[in-house]
């Protein structure tokens, strides 16, 4: 278990509910969902209801690099810039950038491969932007960071893996700051894949799946400092090999994470899909009577980005003294589970 705490020194978010966190938080608390927009899934033609995010403005330092980028890099740069504005400048060499994603730059990947299939070759302008670490590269260049820039990919647990990696680096003394960014962009083909997997729904009230979403969340982390909210523990996670035993494994994970304490609040990863139902059931059994918050049922499912949004919700509750210890579990769609505990740093 990665423990002893690292503090959140700055945060930024770009979501379908907006970019101003206080306003976003107000809408989450008020149950105010974003406007549903429709994509068309390729080939099946099924209308896909999604929560889209407006392409944000980015600092001038990023404009030239991003001119050929897809939405994910804009989201990542904007959220990172806001987080750094809040935390103060980062030491160029002693900062690690940890980027997390699930689908990555899926829009350009689909477009590039469509060209290969249709025309026998693809565009050299698109291909470089298809690599998972392209958004991290743009963020590092925008901020002039020349230290480690690592991109971690998985299901929604990638956000937690990024936090665990950042905590490891900070606590080993390898770096003084970590900028953790998670971002996701929407694409009709990805939606179709999840539809075939029976994980998404075209409408928020269907109760049969999640609404996909997009955006980014960035956190600046440093050694724990009094008066801040800290990520007190990050569980290294577990792989759920089979559905039946997976429930037991996830239950054990929650127990290990809580380590005998009962948190005041659980900010769950449930977003309307099957794994979320399992998560709510098990969390309810392990922590009977505690308060639950399910922000992804409002904001939609943006995977790793949503995981960091869960952390922002936890931070807000602690700052407002509505909770003192918050558990943030994640039951991913791709066989991984993890969790973190947030609390006030003393």
């Amino acid at each position: 278990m990665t423990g002893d705490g690292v503090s959140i020194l700055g945060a930024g978010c770009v979501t379908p509910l907006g970019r101003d966190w206080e306003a976003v938080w107000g809408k989450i608390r008020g149950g105010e969902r974003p406007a549903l927009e429709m994509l068309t899934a390729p080939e099946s033609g099924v209308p896909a209801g999604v929560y889209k995010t407006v392409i944000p403005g980015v600092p001038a330092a990023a404009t030239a690099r991003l001119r050929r980028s897809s939405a994910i890099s804009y989201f990542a740069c904007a959220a990172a810039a806001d987080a750094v504005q809040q935390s103060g400048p980062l030491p160029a060499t002693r900062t690690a950038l940890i980027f997390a994603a699930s689908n990555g730059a899926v829009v350009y990947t689909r477009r590039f491969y469509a060209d290969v299939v249709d025309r026998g070759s693809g565009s050299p302008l698109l291909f470089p932007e298809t690599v998972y670490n392209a958004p991290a590269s743009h963020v590092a260049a925008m901020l002039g960071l020349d230290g480690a820039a690592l991109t971690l990919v998985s299901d929604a647990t990638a956000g937690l893996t990024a936090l665990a990696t950042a905590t490891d680096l900070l606590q080993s003394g390898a770096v003084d700051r970590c900028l953790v960014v998670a971002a996701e962009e929407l694409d009709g083909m990805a939606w179709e894949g999840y539809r075939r997997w029976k994980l998404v729904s075209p409408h928020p009230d269907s109760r049969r799946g999640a609404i996909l979403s997009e955006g980014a969340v960035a956190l600046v982390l440093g050694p724990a400092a009094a008066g801040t909210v800290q990520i007190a523990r990050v569980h290294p996670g577990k792989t759920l090999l089979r559905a039946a035993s997976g429930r037991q494994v996830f239950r054990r994970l929650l127990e290990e994470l809580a380590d005998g304490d009962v948190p005041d609040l659980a900010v769950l990863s449930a977003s309307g899909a099957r794994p979320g139902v399992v998560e709510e059931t098990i969390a309810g059994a392990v922590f009977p009577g505690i308060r639950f918050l399910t922000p992804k049922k409002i904001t939609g499912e943006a995977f790793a980005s949503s995981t960091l949004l869960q952390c922002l919700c936890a931070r807000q509750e602690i700052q407002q003294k509505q909770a003192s210890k918050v558990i943030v579990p994640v039951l991913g769609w791709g066989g991984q589970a993890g969790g973190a505990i947030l609390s006030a740093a003393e």
Partner: protein
Amino acid sequence: MAQSFVAPPPAIPVITGLGCVSPLGSDLSATRESLRVGRDGISAVRLFPVETFQARTAGQVPLDFEGRPEELFPASRDWTRAARLILPAMHEALAARPGFIPEIVVAGTTSGGMDFGEQFFRGLSGGLGNKQARRLVRRYVPQQPVIDVLEVFGFDAPVRVVSNACASGTNALCLAAGLVRNRRAKRVMALGFDALAELVFAGFDCLRASTTEKCRPFDANRSGLALGEGAACFLLEAGDEVPAAAVRASVAGWGFANDNHHLTQPEPSGAGPRLSMERALADAGWTPGDVDYINAHGTGTPFNDSSEAAAIRSVCPQVPVSSTKGMTGHALGAAGAIEAAFCVLALEDGLMPPNINLRETDSALDLVANKARPFALRRVLSNSFGFGGANATVLLERPA
């Protein structure tokens, strides 16, 4: 006031198990022999049609493991190509260290189960059924090839997947070593893997980065890279917790750097590679004179090799260098792990792998030209650089 962390005394991360699958062989024995003779593992691409591309060759792994281990694990027939590459590498590594149960797996890849992603895309226009679609989508995600193989061995360790372009394999090995060094975990598995995929092949082809002839790293007339594929698996433990006889090599240090120059082109003076090498040396407490051999990233593209040569001249000008990518092709996210495995074999055999297909060089480096060079190696350095300006260097040391 900021809290200072009380870190436990660091451990020396050591490699106690190793497996490698590449165009040079499906196990360490075959790989060792190929490195000794300088075998060219590049051949005509058979996995997908290449008529519309300029490049037509790549380093491919024949998935005919002589009854091992496909026959042992029939489930693999339903897997992505990437998982089928990982399986024999992990099998070989674990065979050397019975009882090893990883607490965490750190894997590097660029494209995960891309072949299934391609099949899904093509299937959408061909009436792909839901059952088949679910299988393809579920197995396409980058962590799934690793999970598929872990399940064979009954491991439920969490999987951390690094996708840092062509530095991924080295990043994964170093992050895994860091978990052991900082005593976050006692037993960590590191992997690098990537399978040839049409999308990626088309990508390098459209960038004109792929060669239409031989891949000739550091040759004055080099014309580009050949893609490759493979997997390498490392079992990492703390040096003070394993018997000396179990140690194949130690991971002495590492360095990462980001050059912030361009998404696909390296900074011409080699600033990023220089920084990653300098940071690795500082991390290990080595001087440039301590390095006996450098396994270069050496893709064979004009820009990469000139940038890397400038960095090596600046940091370790006297050290013998070779790129093994003329033999294997560029296995992208697997490359760093495969080349680190080659370095372990070089340390064990006292033989620097050759830089094949070299005619004349413009690098001003001491290249291990065309034939393996015997030397009692003790300390070696391996470089990996990737799109996005990702640079990583790892240092490996033979046990005393």
